[in-house]
């Protein structure tokens, strides 16, 4: 093996056992102050049968072992701080650290959700300003910040649709979902009590108004539309599509996971959307942290506002207050007021950019995606000819002829020092390579990425077998996911 490949050169990483294997009886890493009140006998206070003898096999390690353990494990990870993370549909942009700093300011981080409103005005103001800015960005009349993630926002949105239609006399039965949709869309419709009808996309990867027209009737409650859609294409007929749905009394839900393509350029509220969610952890830069936390703000047009989750933020006599008197509300979707710490980060991001800066970020995101598309198109088959927005989607047809699939190319890309693109999604694309660079990447990083993918395309021509067994440069070689699922071991046992 050569020592350098792409931007990679291997370096030493430490092996590390699981905490349970590191444990030794009696080792500790904690400190507690001396108890300044009389000790209480647990058995006496709680009843002997209610007191556990010990937490069997719980870790017993020292402080230095804890820090080394997690630091060693961290070095086995890839993150945006190490380089391009072009996961399509995930908007892996740089996470400004000022956001982390402000979320930890004591008066915010230690605010208890039940402390008096008079002592929570700052937190409430932050939420109110964010609601206002998001409303402006979405083109929507009202916003709730309660949902904890994108899927939770979808769920909230579809429940709003149900409540609204119910108030009109009939909640209806079905939700339409394009076959290109993210899995959370159909899953959401089901848990919100609807049936799902899947709509076939046309040869451009878009919703076909004629197919839609034939599918909509008065049993359809809503259609869930991702725009730009999951192939990175703006639904060019969106206004017409919304018109078709509205004419039949159906609501238009937008999955705003791809809002990074639109901020400051086009507003969902202006092109016919009734309700949308935005993944604040994507468009508004809060770090993904290995899979969360997120926030799934939901924006609505005024006809849906009375149904928003309780409580609602209101202002009276210059003071912010939570209004629990929302008789038409769908109720709560989460305890308290949402993932407030994530909301702080999103507001910090919006303030840092300002209106013009947000639009510039959008244009840069579009430029970066189109640049990648132009550079890679000679080597990989673009899935659809329609113009790309913030991401570009290729299929693996050319490489498949050599027996190499998108998943293999992804693993080989790791050897070159990049996190892979999104693999095999959307499902309507044959072996999808879904690439979203975001606006925060430099031309240098994009060029290095293209050079790597092009080098892999060449490797596939000359040595496909080698590519099929990648990665080679990682400390962990290809992980056997099949065995993991066949014989699940989901916890450590002594």
């Amino acid at each position, binding site marked *: 093996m050569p020592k350098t490949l792409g931007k990679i050169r291997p370096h030493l990483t430490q092996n590390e056992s699981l905490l349970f294997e590191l444990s030794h009886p009696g080792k*500790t*890493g*904690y400190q507690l102050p001396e108890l300044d*009140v009389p000790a209480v006998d647990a058995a006496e206070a*709680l009843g002997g049968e*209610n*007191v*556990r003898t*010990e*937490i069997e096999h*719980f870790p017993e390690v020292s402080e230095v072992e804890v*820090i080394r353990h*997690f630091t060693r*494990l961290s070095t*086995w990870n*890839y993150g945006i*701080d190490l380089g391009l993370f072009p996961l399509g549909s995930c908007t892996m942009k740089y996470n400004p650290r000022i956001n*982390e700093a*402000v979320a930890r300011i*004591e*008066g915010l981080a230690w*605010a208890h959700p*039940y*402390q008096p409103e008079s*002592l929570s005005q700052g937190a409430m*103001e932050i939420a109110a300003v964010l609601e206002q800015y998001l409303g402006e960005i979405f083109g929507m009349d009202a916003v709730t910040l309660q949902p*904890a*993630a*994108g*899927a939770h926002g979808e*769920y909230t949105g579809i429940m709003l649709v149900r409540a609204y239609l119910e108030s009109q006399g009939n909640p209806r039965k079905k939700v339409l979902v394009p076959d290109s949709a993210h*899995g959370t869309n159909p899953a959401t419709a*089901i*848990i919100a009590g609807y049936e799902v009808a899947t709509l076939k996309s046309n040869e451009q990867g878009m919703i076909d108004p004629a197919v839609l027209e034939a599918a909509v009737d008065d049993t359809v409650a809503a259609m869930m539309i991702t725009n730009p859609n999951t192939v990175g294409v703006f639904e060019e007929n*969106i206004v017409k599509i919304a018109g078709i749905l509205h004419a039949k009394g159906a609501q238009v839900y937008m999955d705003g996971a791809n809002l990074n393509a639109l901020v*400051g350029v086009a507003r969902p509220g*202006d092109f016919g959307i009734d309700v949308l969610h935005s993944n604040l*952890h994507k468009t508004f830069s809060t770090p*993904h942290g*290995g*899979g969360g*936390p997120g926030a799934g703000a939901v924006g609505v047009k005024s006809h849906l506002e009375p149904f928003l989750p*309780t409580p609602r933020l209101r202002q009276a006599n210059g003071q912010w207050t939570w209004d629990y008197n929302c008789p038409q509300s769908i109720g709560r979707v*989460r305890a*308290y*007021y949402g993932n407030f*710490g994530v909301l702080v980060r999103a507001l*910090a991001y919006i303030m*840092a950019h300002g*209106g*013009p800066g947000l639009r510039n970020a959008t244009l840069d995101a579009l430029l970066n995606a189109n*640049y990648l*598309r132009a550079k890679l198109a000679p080597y990989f088959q673009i899935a659809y000819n329609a113009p790309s927005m913030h991401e570009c989607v290729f299929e693996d047809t050319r490489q498949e002829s050599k027996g190499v699939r998108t998943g293999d190319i992804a693993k080989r890309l790791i050897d070159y020092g990049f*996190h892979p693109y999104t*693999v095999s999604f959307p499902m309507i694309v044959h072996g999808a390579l879904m690439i979203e660079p975001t606006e925060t990447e430099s031309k240098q990083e994009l060029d290095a990425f293209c050079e790597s993918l092009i080098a892999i395309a060449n490797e596939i021509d000359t040595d496909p077998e080698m590519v099929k067994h990648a990665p080679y440069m990682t400390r962990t070689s290809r*992980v*056997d996911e099949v065995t993991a*699922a066949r014989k699940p*071991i*989901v916890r450590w046992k002594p």
Partner: protein
Amino acid sequence: MLDACGLKSLDDLYSHLPAEALFPRSLDIPAGKSEYEISDYFKQQAAKNANGYASFLGAGVYAHYRPVLCDVVVSRGEFLTSYTPYQAEIAQGTLTTIFEFQTMVCQLTGMEVANASMYDGSTAVPEAAMMAARVTGRHKFLVASNLHPEYREVLDTAARNAQLHVEPFGYDSKTGTIDIAGLESKLDKDIACVILQSPNFFGIVENIKQASELAHKHGALLVVVFSEAVSLGLVEPPRDADIVVGELQSFAISPSYGGPFAGIIATKEKYMRQIPGRLVGETKDADGNRAFCLTLSTREQHIRREKATSNICTNQALIALMATVFMSVYGKQGLRELAEQNLAKAHYLAKGLDLPFSGPFFNEFVARPKGRTPEEANAALLEKKIIGGLPLGRFFPELKDSLLLCATEMSKRADIDAVKEVLL
């Protein structure tokens, strides 16, 4: 770069959008601010919140000391800026910590399988209820009225939309624990699960064994909820439950005005395939080394779509990592001592106060201020820079004369004494 794209200007990037979809003006959001200005803005907002107050609020969100290591670890860019670990070869750090998290959640709760996290304790409750409905094929949930009221509201919202039925059962007005006779009278063959919290919303430890025997006698599952994870350092875990859901906010997660927190769901091995959300499993890499990866994903929305066990995708990974570090720092001995300190502080605070309930409590309890309403008592405490308890009338009209008070290892004796003075 525009040249490479065959474009003349940045505006060409979106010129194909239908004209009526384009936003004709600029966003009405002030121009971008510098790091200093942003920091200053949020400090000013923070200054309008409570600062420098001692607090005796619990009710699902607890003030516990956060060991410094927790922020040190989650601030590492390799953890902070990574994504869901779908590419196992470059995500072994995250995957290993989740496997440890799942294991520790099992050890804490007495269950056999735990997932990688839920959004929070409140949203984990309907997930458990839906899971019980799938397992039993039944459609009714019996819910204790001393479950956290906001958890209950979240369950009600979910059940209403899924056309499932929630039926409350009461609590014993003497002990504050669930009304066992009331529960028994409502159990029948339509009940998918019984849902109760322990320590319950009043801070009182429930008799899980008794409830589980009753539920199982009628073919229903028992779902046990917790909101104060520190209690599990000392209190017997709900081993007789079928599903345990709860909130790990107590484990190094700052109150943060209500979130982000980390929920858990844990169950018996036989229900593993019905559990919602992500699961990490152990396997090997091509060279035979131990490795971890996401597994059993045929339960999940990205594979199963409308047949998935849940729609959850993004969870609370980084927060779960914070809790994992917390559990590692405290460890077996520390978590117990921490729980003992909480018990001692709360019992010291409670001593001599007028307590309407006789059930055994951990670190929070219900008390009636003498000669004042809860609101008056809190107002008097605020003058001493103390935030008192939660007035319960808002959720329980029959307890409008009472406060829910919590003391933790961070409650100082002098502040506790000051509270007692006002309440006695």
